[in-house]
């Protein structure tokens, strides 16, 4: 130690900055935050949990943003809570509580600076990850623009996770606090998943919940993204963070009377925000294009997003929403043989137009059903939803799989619709769980439909049930037009319009299985021209149920 009393000029190499006090304090915390050590881990986890799954999905903004909100936060939130607890317990673990407790700056202010440094690093990494995913998505030519609400919810989750963990660490400093905080947050997220599957309305506030059970194309593509739920989630998370940080300012040693009053106000405001958000979530309704919270809802969001469809230029044009432009060749190729066979028939589609799934059915388990393809209008238009189909490239799925699924699921439904088999409802209203009953008058329709399916290779071979009742085309269209589960949470109980199960109690004598099979075989072995010619003449009668099996050539 020296005895010099005159001011000493620091060597240039370590001269410190003269930035303003709070900024300088934050800068030191930023430079030495333990969160820095966690960043490489978080980056790797982001790549594994979010980037790769996101890239396995089509370049749709809604899917990518939903993946960011749900996948990233499931991994980040527990880790950030643990890291926050580690930072928050620093003074207690390091034996510095006395020293930092007797400084002029209120302890609360110092703690907020420590939390802010940790949160800033976590947010920076999170936003960098978002930038990469969005940048790649934009580079892939995604239609529309990025959705920012899911990103905002994620950012709020990052801040809240850090705050909750920090508060736990500051109040209960110890070497195990970080692990416990991470575990508690993970269990809370897992509990939220169970609660939301049990359809607890308030559980919609769960931060990983993007748009409930909706298929990705029902929001953000055909219709605007509804921010109602995201607003409530951000309110909830901000409130949670405010409560966590506010309670740190309540103890007597945290600061002066005014500062403690401010901390109390922050705590109360946080509680109010979180409570209000949960209450708002309790009023949420599952509507066709997303989750609606009446108090937060803007009716303008209900209007469909205008777009110019991307169309093929064949005999029967196929028009898709431009977000699906890349899949136009596959859709056209998949439907081409079928449309060619049906062209010119009365009621056959003159055009194919992609539509959004608009059906909302069961509230239990958030299940929603999807309507299948429907032919309606004059001239007839085939309204075709693509939801639930695995698109080419999605999860490394080959284009052939998409074609097979499209023809297998929707092709049969189209044929059913054309020959007059009950096939659901007009486009836009969607009826699910079709459990209609078939009578003997449908036997000829079934035979023709089965024969067409066979010659068009729409489905694999099936057996025609025999017995007292007409057969059900049980397997080929069994999964229904779009009965697959959508991304997001909640299993969906879809039963498509193509489902043909069971037999009904129709009037009259039922033909035998052999008779039915013979009719199918006869019609299938006709030449394409002969089939077409017969259909041109008899399709109207067939649809009306006035054709018998014996009349089938």
């Amino acid at each position, binding site marked *: 130690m020296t005895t010099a009393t005159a001011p000493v000029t620091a060597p240039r190499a*370590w001269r410190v900055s003269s930035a303003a006090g709070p900024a300088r304090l934050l800068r030191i915390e930023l430079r030495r935050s333990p969160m820095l050590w966690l960043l490489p881990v978080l980056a790797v986890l982001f790549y594994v949990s979010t980037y790769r799954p996101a890239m396995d999905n089509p370049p749709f903004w809604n899917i990518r943003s939903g993946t960011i909100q749900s996948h990233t936060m499931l991994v980040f939130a527990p880790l950030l809570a643990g890291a926050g607890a580690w930072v928050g317990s620093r003074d207690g673990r390091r034996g510095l509580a006395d020293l930092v407790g007797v400084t002029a700056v209120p302890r609360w202010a110092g703690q907020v600076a420590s939390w802010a440094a940790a949160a800033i690093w976590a947010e920076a990494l999170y936003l960098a990850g978002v930038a990469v995913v969005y940048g790649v998505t934009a580079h892939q030519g995604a239609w529309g623009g990025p959705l920012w609400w899911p990103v905002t919810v994620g950012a709020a989750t990052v801040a809240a996770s850090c705050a909750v963990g920090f508060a736990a660490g500051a109040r209960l400093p110890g070497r195990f606090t970080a692990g416990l905080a991470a575990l508690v947050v993970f269990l809370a997220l897992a509990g939220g998943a169970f609660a939301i599957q049990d359809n607890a309305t308030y559980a919609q506030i769960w931060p990983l919940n993007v748009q409930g059970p909706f298929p990705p194309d029902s929001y953000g593509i055909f219709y605007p993204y509804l921010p109602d739920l995201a607003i409530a989630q951000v309110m909830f998370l901000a409130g949670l963070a405010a409560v966590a940080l506010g309670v740190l300012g309540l103890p007597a040693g945290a600061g002066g009377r005014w500062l403690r009053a401010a901390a109390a106000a922050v705590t109360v405001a946080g509680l109010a925000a979180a409570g209000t958000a949960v209450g708002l979530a309790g009023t949420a309704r599952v509507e066709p294009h997303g989750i609606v919270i009446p108090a937060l809802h803007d009716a303008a969001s209900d209007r469909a997003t205008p777009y110019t469809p991307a169309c093929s230029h064949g005999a029967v044009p196929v028009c898709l929403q431009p977000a699906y432009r890349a899949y136009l060749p596959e859709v056209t190729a998949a439907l081409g043989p079928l449309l060619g066979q049906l062209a010119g028939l009365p009621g056959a589609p003159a055009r194919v137009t992609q539509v959004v799934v608009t059906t909302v059915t069961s509230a239990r388990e958030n299940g929603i059903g999807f309507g299948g393809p429907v032919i309606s209008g004059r001239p007839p238009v085939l309204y075709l939803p693509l939801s639930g189909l695995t698109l080419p490239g999605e999860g490394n799925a080959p284009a052939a799989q998409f074609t097979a699924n499209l023809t297998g699921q929707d092709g049969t439904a189209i044929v059913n619709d054309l020959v007059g088999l009950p096939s659901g409802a007009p486009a836009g209203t969607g009826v699910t769980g079709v459990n209609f009953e078939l009578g003997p008058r449908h036997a000829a329709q079934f035979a023709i439909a089965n024969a067409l399916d066979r010659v068009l290779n729409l489905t694999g071979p099936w057996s025609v049930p025999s017995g007292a009742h007409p057969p059900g085309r049980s397997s080929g269209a069994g999964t229904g037009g779009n009965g697959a589960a959508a991304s997001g949470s909640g299993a969906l109980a879809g039963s498509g319009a193509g489902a043909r199960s069971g037999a009904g109690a129709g009037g009259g004598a039922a033909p035998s299985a052999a008779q039915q099979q013979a009719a199918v075989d006869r019609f299938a072995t006709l030449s394409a021209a002969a089939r077409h010619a017969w259909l041109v003449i008899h399709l109207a009668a067939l649809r009306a149920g006035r054709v018998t099996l014996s009349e089938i050539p």
Partner: protein
Amino acid sequence: MNVEVAGVTRRFGRTKAVAGVDLAAGPGVLGLLGPNGAGKTSLLRMLATVIPPSSGTLRLLGRDPRGYAQRKQVRRRLGYLPQSLGYYPGFTVAEFVEYFALLKEMPPGRVPGAVAAAVERVDLGDKARARLRTLSGGMLRRAGIAQAIVNDPDLLLLDEPTAGLDPEQRVAFRTLLRDMGQRATVIVSTHLVEDVGAACSQVALMDAGRIVFHGTPDELTARAEGTDAAGDAPLERGYSAVLAAARHAATTGTPA
């Protein structure tokens, strides 16, 4: 007087760590001596506003630290080195000292110069950019002293500051103490009577939560005259004599 203590008591449960202490101190270096458990650290923590007294009154730098606003004013002008100093392993020496300068609400413009001066005064200039985790125990102690003096305090409270310092550093530290004591009130809690003899103008001896002696080092030395008190140095013998007399008085109920 920068420090005025009247009838201060501090209890921890049933244990009375400080039992009715009266003390006044102005500018200069006051050595606080006493055996383990005498109450030195508890008294110092009360003076540092870490803990409030259970009873009695304190006035520090002319202010009553019970009120937050006054306590804050005291803290701006306070330097404190706890007995067991924790540290942030990832911080450099300069950052550690700067961090506390900022927490003491020093004007930001003065911080760089003050940090540089404090680090140099504890002879850590060449280690200013070293992480604290890389320093020896003695260097960490000096970094702790640097954070205590960075705001040029009017009241400097040091609890066992020379623990871990090598002889050369202890000599330099005593010089620093004398220098600081010319303007500020410096209270040094220590077991090492030679530190007191070399650096302190006043000495207070505590035992069983009470101050049993308050005077100059010479007066403490004089207490050993005519006794067979143990000790290698005169001040040590004075220390032993005072303690023995205080304990005898406590058991017999007679004044020391």
